[in-house]
């Protein structure tokens, strides 16, 4: 079990670095979606089933949709952008960066006494979940709604250049 989590962490790390260093915006967005999906898997493995479900649906799903639509709304010629940021030296450094950072992280993990939390039994029923989220944390739910609305506004305000 632990080995699976460590492999997922490694994949997560790779996806994250790719998302930052890839030239094409679209490919970056997809790498980010991949990272979110792997994170959802890790959350499920660690016992937070509902967190994993939310992560998958919102981050890997909704957010990627928003990203892709934002990219398509912006007018710049994506081929030119790719050429502008083309940097062979940067991309050739990618494996080196991955290896070095990976080694450092593994060393840190080996030295410090990390413990995976005990697996929490997935005993929450659907009712219990609803009660937690609606009665106790309703403020956050409304807050998230407003966040998404703001995000939509952001896209329109920043990228919509056609009238």
């Amino acid at each position, binding site marked *: 079990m632990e080995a699976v989590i460590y492999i997922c962490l490694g994949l997560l790390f790779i996806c994250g670095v790719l998302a930052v260093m890839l030239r094409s915006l679209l490919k970056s967005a997809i790498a980010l979606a991949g990272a979110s999906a792997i994170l959802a898997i890790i959350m499920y493995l660690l016992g937070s089933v509902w967190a994993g479900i939310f992560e998958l649906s919102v981050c890997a799903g909704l957010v990627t949709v928003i990203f892709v639509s934002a990219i398509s709304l912006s007018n710049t010629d994506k081929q030119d952008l790719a050429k502008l940021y083309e940097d062979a030296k940067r991309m050739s450094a990618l494996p080196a960066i991955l290896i070095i950072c990976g080694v450092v992280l593994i060393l840190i993990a080996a030295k410090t006494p990390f413990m995976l939390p005990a697996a929490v039994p997935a005993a929450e029923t659907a009712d219990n979940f609803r009660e937690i989220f609606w*009665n106790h*944390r*309703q*403020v*956050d739910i*409304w*807050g*998230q709604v*407003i*966040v998404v*609305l*703001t*995000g939509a*506004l*952001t896209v*329109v*305000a*920043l990228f919509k250049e056609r*009238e």
Partner: protein
Amino acid sequence: MQVIESSTVLIFAVPLVIFLINSLFSKRLAEKFSMGLAYVAPITQIVATAACFVQIAHLKQHDIIISWDLAGAVSMRFAVHTYSLVFLFCIALVSLASIMVANRTVPQKRTGFASLLMMLILGMNGIVMVTDLFSLYVFLEIVGISSFVLIAMFKSETGLEGAFKYLVMSVLASIMILTGLAFIFMQTGSLQYDHLEASALAGQSPTQLVLIYAAMILMIAGFAIKTGAVPFHSWLPDAHQSANTAVSVLLSGIVIKVAGIYGLIVITGFFGKLPGIKLTLFIMGTISIIIGALFALRQSHFKRIVAYSSVSQMGYILLGLSTVSMLGLLGAVAHVFNHATFKSTLFTNAAAVHEQTGTYDINELGGLEKKMGVTSFSSLAAFMSTAGIPPFAGFWSKLLIIMALWSSGARVFAAIALFASIFTAAYFLRLQRKVFFGKLRDQLAGITEIGGSVKLAQIMLTVVTIAAGLLFPFALLYFRGIGLL
């Protein structure tokens, strides 16, 4: 109690409703009316907060918990402290000033501006009223997103550099705050204010509190970035320079305080007694005051001078918070209010000067007092208030902070804070000499005073500054009446 409950409903509902209205109507109709409609939100909020102040005086309480239970569909808990009310009032006042300035300086994308402003107001209102640290984080994100977009959306001549710097620093701060929250959650098991207050930390030794200290470092750093305190201040002047002046009014006037200072108020409220917290805030505050003022002395861009002045004034508020006492908190909150008014005034003046002369460079200006009397007088009132010169309001809040510092034993810091006021006076004297108080340059001979909503905003803010200064003793009596002093 009724009054306060309905006020909180209004405070949340109105901006949301306006946003929805803006989105529903056709583009052309929205473009014409969105700005005018936007006025409704801050004005309602000012009236609602004023009513709450009166109600609190009647109830003689200063901490009220509101539970919403609207037809079983919506149920949330909010807390209304006296200082939250002051913040709510400031949010409304600064937003009002910003809309008045934007009326003139934002020719296109008005609907976008108005809608984003509504979201920003919603986010800020949420921050000061929630009862749970995680909810605070959620609304902090709203504020972060909307303020970033407001800065970036006008794509000014200086490019998006300032906006980008702000985005990076803001996201960094959010991550740090979230990690800090996670550490606190691991230690105490709950993030709700009443659970944290019951002090799950009592009786634990420093080694057991490692997680809490790590959380404190992260959260103080995160909120300090949001506040623009030294050494995390580098984004502030650039963001101001990139942003449209209406947005600068918002940014310095209220966002850095609600997003940054309020978070620190909450943190010091729960964890302020831990050794080391006070000293950190003392040092950060003092350095901010001095460095902000010294850098402001060297700038020649009107808005950058005012931005560094913000950094300096945040230092005073941090010093007030660092005493972890009621007097210090009162002084800090009073300074938040005063800073909201005088900083908004200064940015409104910058907008007026830029609109009429076309430049922000103070070396190209001179003697504008002759032609722009209202702008000149309001800048004078703002400058005196910033420097802490009586009878303007800034003096009283600085005095309270100094008294609090002295009473808590930090005498050296108190003295340094007072002496550093002379730097504030120095850079503002320079600004006045170069821009207003002197002989009119020949090329500026045709300038006229700015009119319309910007002039009104300046007059309104100046009246508030002067009234707050003259009537401050009454405010002290009010605080005594509700049991805070």
